[in-house]
């Protein structure tokens, strides 16, 4: 399966994903600009992505904890998710995500 990730510079990457991995882990593994400082514990919001229209509704809904963290980011949108909470499966083959400025390894102070 593949996920399609647009980075902060607008470059589109087609990444080989694995069933059962988290989107954050795939993005990190391919060396894209993602901080993911808590390592996937749903504790920090530095793996924040925008999910493409059409895909957002196909994801498992966000937990209250995830919603709280998304709210703490400066660049939240209605289609915001934390990529560590997106569990990949064959149904999500072709999932399109955009990395946000707040997920950058050196985040910009907006």
């Amino acid at each position, binding site marked *: 399966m593949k996920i399609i990730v647009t980075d902060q510079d607008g470059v589109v990457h087609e990444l080989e994903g694995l069933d059962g991995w988290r989107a954050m882990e795939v993005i990190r593994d391919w060396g894209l600009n993602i901080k993911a*400082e808590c*390592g996937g*514990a749903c*504790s*920090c*919001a530095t793996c924040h992505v925008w999910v493409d229209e059409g895909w957002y509704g196909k994801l498992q809904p966000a937990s*209250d904890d995830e919603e*709280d963290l998304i*709210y*703490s980011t400066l660049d939240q949108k209605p289609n915001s998710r934390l990529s560590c909470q997106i569990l990949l499966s064959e149904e999500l083959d072709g999932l399109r995500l955009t990395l946000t400025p707040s997920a950058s390894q050196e985040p910009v102070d907006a």
Partner: protein
Amino acid sequence: MSDVIETDVVIIGAGPVGLFAVFELGLLDVKCHLIDILDRAGGQCAELYPEKPIYDIPGFPMVTGQGLVDNLMQQIAPFGPQFHFSRIVNTLEKQADGRFKLTTDVDETFYCKAVVIAAGGGSFQPKRPPVEGIEAYEGKSVFYAVRKMEDFRDQDVVIVGGGDSALDWTLSLEPIARSLTLVHRRPEFKAAPASVNKMQELVAAGRINFLTGQVARLEGEDGQLSVVHLSMASGEATVHATRMLPFFGLTMKLGPVADWGLELNDNLITVDTEKFESSVPGIFAIGDINHYPGKLKLILSGFHEAALMAQAAKAIVSPGERVVFQYTTSSTKLQKKLGVA
């Protein structure tokens, strides 16, 4: 007040790896002081995932972040480490006499023979909430921490957030504030149930307000806040406020480490894999903050790095002294140091 502290080794960072370094150095009779920006030990384990299970610590099928920290604190207690919390190391310099001089933001100076940087992802800094123009109020009427409670006496205080910091400060400031409003985006809290109960009692007694909503914008002049505008499910609301305390968690920044003249690789300190020493002899780097070929950012890797670093640091602290390799299972000497023999 300017305090001067002299010791063998200063460890920067009191996360799991910094704590275990105390153990490995302690077995070699090396005394340590630890400095951390947080107000308690544990680093990321305590701040980011205290209640989350960790499954890859050797010998522990499962341990929580806080559980690991508590165990490490117990394990290093015999060595009497000295902790200096809620401060950041600003400068680190090698002196003409070969010792190192460190200064902190609370006007302390440390002199030591070796330095261990175990600073993980860098120093924790409060997150700025998503409110436009908030910078203009920071340090004047919007604060991310309470340094002096007196600054909040007879003020109209708005506290934003749903975690322990927000709840703890709501309870602590209620008796001295003129008015206090707690704002959180939903009615459920991620804080100790006892604090939530106490807060709800204060709301029921009419001593504080609780509003479910989000801060939309701030109103004031010259950095002095006067009104907090909230967006709520029922529409807009305004709260008169002269102080605001947003608690949106912490994020990590490398901070002053970048200015200490150490060779860096992508914001990580380059070390060798024999001593885990940086490009400056006598300054070691262990745990998530270092880089070497094959590095894995695992707590267990940091523990290994601490053990090897300790041998090298010992040679600097006690030059010429022969270090005998011993096991804690069999050495009475080591067991005496641990207080078990």
